[in-house]
């Protein structure tokens, strides 16, 4: 059964990982994590989850396919910008 501190940590976890919490509260979280393997696992895997999505989305961020771009400029009735040689 998670303690009040576990629940407290969990509710602030995103802000903790985004670096938006006050230093004093971060110290409290880190002290709790040192003695609570479950919280440590949740914090570590949450951080990794966010990191994996960032890596995967940077790698797979689609360029707009050329045919989709062509149809877009046609629908908008404008010419695509020309770039210098």
């Amino acid at each position, binding site marked *: 059964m*998670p303690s009040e501190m576990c*629940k407290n940590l*969990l*509710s602030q*976890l*995103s*802000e903790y990982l985004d670096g938006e919490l006050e230093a004093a509260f971060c110290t409290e979280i880190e002290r709790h994590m040192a003695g609570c*393997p*479950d919280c*440590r*696992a*949740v914090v*570590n*895997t*949450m*951080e*990794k*989850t*966010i990191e*994996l*999505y*960032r*890596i*995967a*989305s940077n790698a*797979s*961020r*689609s*360029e*707009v396919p050329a045919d*989709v*771009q062509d*149809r*877009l*400029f046609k*629908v*908008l009735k*404008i*010419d*695509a*910008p020309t770039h210098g040689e």
Partner: protein
Amino acid sequence: MNSQDAFLEKLRAGDSVAFAQLVEANQRNVYNLALRMLNDPQEAEDVLQETFLSAYKALPGFEGRSSLSTWLYRIASNASLMRLRKKRPETTSIDEPLEMEEGESLPRQFVDWSSVPEDELLNGESRRMMDEAVAELPEGLRIVFVLRDIEGLSTQEAGEVLELSEAAVKTRLHRARLALREKLSAYFAERL
């Protein structure tokens, strides 16, 4: 007048060269957002076209209170959410508070897989699982996750796009991340 103001003036006046530059600079953001939200290349293309057609019509009245990029994300987000609602009209509106169910936020997976090397974690099958996990999020959480953690907008920018308070953006992002962590942990705990 700085160059940004001059660019805006041209856009408001209907300058097609300036508009083509705006489209080129932002089409990738709009297309990727729509693709993530709708999971369908044809629908993403429809949203892409709708977004820039709407933007062209609305540009003369654009006041510049948010950046052009944020404004385009807003049009694209609304267009994507409208399509999702038409398919499933019973789904929650982005404006309604999303209540937490009892125990929803409590973790159930405690295996720590975070030290496994990324090249082992990010294979083709796990990437598909990660995409499916995002697609299964309720749309009000999915849009916030896509804007913040995939498109890389700040909390303030995501709030401007969705016309939500920063506190509401943070709450939804947190819930989305908790749900995704559970799914990734269940998947990796079985395989590693």
